[in-house]
C-alpha cells in the first residue's frame, strides 16, 4: 500500500503559508483507502460569550513537530497499519474564520478514519506545545487556560479545561 512516509507533520507560519485542507486530503488518499476523515479547526467569533477578533498561536516548533509524529505513531498503532495521517498547525495571528489546524486520516474503511482523525486532533489539542492568545473586541487579550503537560505530578495541575 505505502511506499513513502505515511505521516505528514507541519507547523506553518501564517505570514508565509496557509493551511490547505485539499493538500491534506490528497496526502491521506491511497487506491486502497475508501474512507478519509478531515478535521478543520477555525478561529471562531465568540468564546465563552466574548466577541473575539483574532487569535495568536505561539508554538514550540521543533518540539511540536516531534510530538505530532509521536501522536501519529500512536494513532497508527491503534488504527493502522493501513493508514495515512496528516497534521498541520498554523503559527502567528489569525483572523475570524481562518484555519488554525488541519488533521486528516485515510484508511480502507470509514470507522478507522473517523477514530484516527479524532484521536489525532485530541492529542494535538491536549498535548502539543501550542498556546493560544485570544484578542477580544474590547481590546483585551488573554492566553487561554489549557492542559498541563506535567500530568505525572497531579498536585501541580491548575483547574483544567481539557
Amino acid at each position, binding site marked *: 500500500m505505502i511506499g513513502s512516509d505515511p505521516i505528514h507533520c507541519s507547523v506553518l507560519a501564517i505570514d508565509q503559508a496557509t493551511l490547505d485542507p485539499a493538500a491534506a486530503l490528497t496526502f491521506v488518499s491511497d487506491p486502497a483507502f475508501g474512507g478519509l476523515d478531515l478535521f478543520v479547526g477555525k478561529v471562531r467569533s465568540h468564546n465563552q460569550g466574548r466577541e473575539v477578533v483574532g487569535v495568536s498561536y505561539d508554538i*514550540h516548533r521543533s*518540539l511540536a513537530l516531534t510530538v505530532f509524529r509521536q501522536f501519529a505513531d500512536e494513532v497508527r498503532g491503534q488504527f493502522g497499519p493501513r493508514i495515512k495521517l496528516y497534521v498541520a498547525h498554523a503559527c502567528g495571528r489569525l483572523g475570524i474564520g481562518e484555519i488554525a*489546524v488541519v488533521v486528516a486520516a485515510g484508511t480502507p474503511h470509514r470507522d478507522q478514519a473517523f477514530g484516527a482523525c479524532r484521536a489525532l486532533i485530541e492529542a494535538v489539542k491536549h498535548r*502539543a*506545545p501550542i*498556546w*493560544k492568545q485570544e484578542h477580544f473586541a474590547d481590546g483585551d487579550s488573554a492566553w487561554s487556560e489549557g492542559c*498541563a*503537560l506535567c500530568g505525572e505530578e497531579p498536585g501541580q495541575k491548575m483547574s483544567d479545561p481539557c
Partner: protein
Amino acid sequence: MIVQLALFGAFRDLHREPTLLLEVSGDTVSAVRASFAAHLLGQGHAERSALIRASAFASDQALLHDTEAIPADGRLAILPPVSGG
C-alpha cells in the same frame, strides 16, 4: 550554571525577549523551576507561581521530568498548560 530558558505562551508577556538567561544553583530541572520562580518573584510576579507549578520543561525534542538533569547545552523551555487547535 547559566541556563537559557525559552519562554512560551503567557510567560512571553513577562519578558522582552523570547529567552531568559537564568542563574541556576543545581543541575536538575527542578532547580530551574525553583530559580525561575524566584526570578519572577523578584520581578514582582508572585501571581505567576501557580502557573510555574503547572508548567512542564522540555528540551527541543522531549519533555523533561523534574528529576532529570539540565541538558548539557544549558538550553530548555518552560511550557505552560497548552491550548492548541
